[in-house]
């Protein structure tokens, strides 16, 4: 058995783990990061969807929920985690969500408290608004529709630097323009002395006398590794963090471990336009429409190469073939629901089983959202609109099983709540009832956000790291080389 020692052992190198590791290491701590997946080499990115889905995603992008309807849940695997394969969209936590967290979960996380955390993250990730030139014609279709209907909309803010609109954010950015944590925070962590071990499958958190002593892991070559560390930060992601806590006998007293799962279920529609759209030219997710955010749904861009479009296009047979023959004139846009449905994750034979059923209120949001989606495309001048429904189903009467859904934002399975009887973690993201175990990923987020969560997760991770160091969060620039000016170019 191999043995290593550190002040902090961080399990996972995604949105939360990478941020915690870098901030702790730069703060002078000895940090060891254990990542289950590999370090991906951007030279191996091919911009070809099936191959990249198989290599960059957990389970080859075949993770799905069990329930009505089944929902595909793409999760990244490797250094960078899901930030490697997401669209790069950056939203701060909406203020009304923070207010709800204070009232319902006793979390002292107001805008002012989190502002320096967000500033620090946004600077590290070069977050800036997409320019109209980079957004591409697919975004222009949606923007035109929203303009004509008078709907609130805008260009999204993203973590990209020197982006040229390759159109394959979710299949591995070939230009390394997307500032995922594998090329931002992880290099900062290693430069500050942190050690990263890939291919390390953490089996258990070692707890003695009510306090963390480290973790045990199995390496890719079958060897066992034991890490001795008085502080463990769990950042395996919303699906796998509760399973590690369960294997370790931690966080279960409140009955919430693995529960409270929110997903932001989503879908997308296509439209046949008169003009060439060439949807894969430009930033796939570059425009949002938030006119209906208070009704619980929002529209965001979606697009990709022909193989991706063929996979997602909600048609079969001859209709599919005909629509794909017009690929260059196809536009696509996404619909995301801020869900009230709640699911649960548990382990069966060591694998995650994710149970999630769409509740009636969320079904109503999808019905309304699909009707609005058709309205949007028709206003933009679409000849035909292809909604993601089973043949013969209509939006206004769609049943859960008629919907073709995916979800990109799992949250809440180790939710933070100031009360030990209601949450797995407390307001400082420490696991209730055990010393020295903290959580830094989407699992602590106690409710659906209604917006993409990566910035929220990173801001919470920043706050956690500074808390562990016993320092106030500084919004001062991170080390040289990690910064850009507002236009996304190195300063």
């Amino acid at each position, binding site marked *: 058995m191999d043995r290593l020692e550190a002040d902090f052992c961080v399990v996972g190198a995604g949105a939360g783990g990478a941020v915690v590791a870098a901030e702790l290491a730069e703060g002078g701590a000895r940090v060891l990061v254990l990542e289950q997946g590999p370090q991906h080499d951007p030279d191996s990115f091919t911009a070809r969807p*099936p191959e990249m*889905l198989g290599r960059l995603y957990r389970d080859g992008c*075949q993770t799905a929920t069990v329930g009505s309807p089944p929902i595909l849940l793409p999760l990244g695997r490797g250094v960078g985690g899901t930030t490697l394969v997401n669209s790069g969209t950056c939203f701060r936590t909406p203020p009304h969500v923070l207010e709800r967290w204070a009232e319902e979960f006793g979390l002292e996380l107001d805008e002012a408290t989190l502002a320096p955390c967000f500033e620090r993250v946004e600077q590290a990730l070069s977050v800036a608004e997409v320019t109209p030139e980079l957004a591409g014609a697919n975004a222009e279709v949606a923007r035109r529709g929203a303009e004509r209907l008078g709907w609130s909309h805008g260009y999204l803010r993203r973590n990209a630097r020197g982006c040229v609109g390759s159109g394959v954010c979710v299949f591995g950015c070939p230009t390394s323009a997307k500032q995922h944590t594998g*090329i931002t925070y992880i290099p900062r962590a290693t430069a500050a002395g942190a050690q990263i071990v890939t291919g390390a499958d953490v089996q258990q958190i070692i707890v003695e006398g009510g306090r963390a002593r480290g973790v045990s892991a199995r390496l890719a070559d079958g060897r066992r590794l034991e890490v001795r560390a008085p502080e463990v930060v769990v950042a395996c992601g919303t699906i796998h963090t509760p399973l590690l806590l369960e294997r370790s006998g931690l966080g279960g007293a409140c009955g919430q471990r693995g529960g409270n799962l929110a997903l932001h279920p989503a879908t997308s529609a296509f439209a046949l336009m008169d003009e060439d759209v060439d949807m894969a030219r430009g930033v796939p997710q570059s425009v949002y429409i938030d006119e209906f955010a208070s009704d619980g749904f929002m529209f965001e861009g979606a697009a990709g190469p*022909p*193989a991706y479009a063929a*996979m997602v296009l909600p048609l079969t047979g001859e209709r599919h073939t005909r629509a794909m023959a017009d*690929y260059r004139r196809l536009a696509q846009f996404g619909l995301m629901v801020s869900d009230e449905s709640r699911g649960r994750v548990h382990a069966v034979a060591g694998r995650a089983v994710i149970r999630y059923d769409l509740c009636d209120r969320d079904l109503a949001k999808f019905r309304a959202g699909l009707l609005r989606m058709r309205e949007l495309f028709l206003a933009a001048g679409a000849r035909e609109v292809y909604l993601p429904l*089973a043949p013969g189903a209509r939006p206004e009467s769609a049943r859960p099983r008629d919907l073709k859904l995916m979800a990109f934002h799992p949250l809440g399975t180790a939710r933070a709540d100031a009360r030990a009887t209601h949450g797995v973690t407390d307001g400082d993201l420490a696991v209730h009832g055990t010393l020295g175990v903290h959580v830094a990923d989407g699992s602590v987020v106690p409710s659906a956000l209604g917006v993409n969560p990566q910035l929220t997760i990173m801001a919470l991770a920043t706050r956690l790291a500074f808390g562990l160091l016993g320092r106030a969060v500084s919004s001062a620039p991170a080390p040289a080389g990690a910064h850009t000016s507002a236009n996304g170019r190195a300063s």
Partner: protein
Amino acid sequence: MSDGLDTFLAAAPWPQRAGLRLLVALVRRPRGAALLARAPLVEQAAWSTLTLGRYDDPAVGRALGWDAAAVVERGRALRRAEGRP
């Protein structure tokens, strides 16, 4: 089946892998396709997987205005020119 689709299927857990391979085999045959048409969501899964491989063919992509190799080449050149990771 394309190499890319093989990579995609090989990475899936065995139940999904076996299921998708079966669906792709069925949807390629007229009688299998007719059978799948009775279960729309299953038929959609079969078509999604089949066409993910079909439209990944570089020649098919180029005919639709998409050249993956050119996108990758441009990306690599930019990374090297600007010293990106």
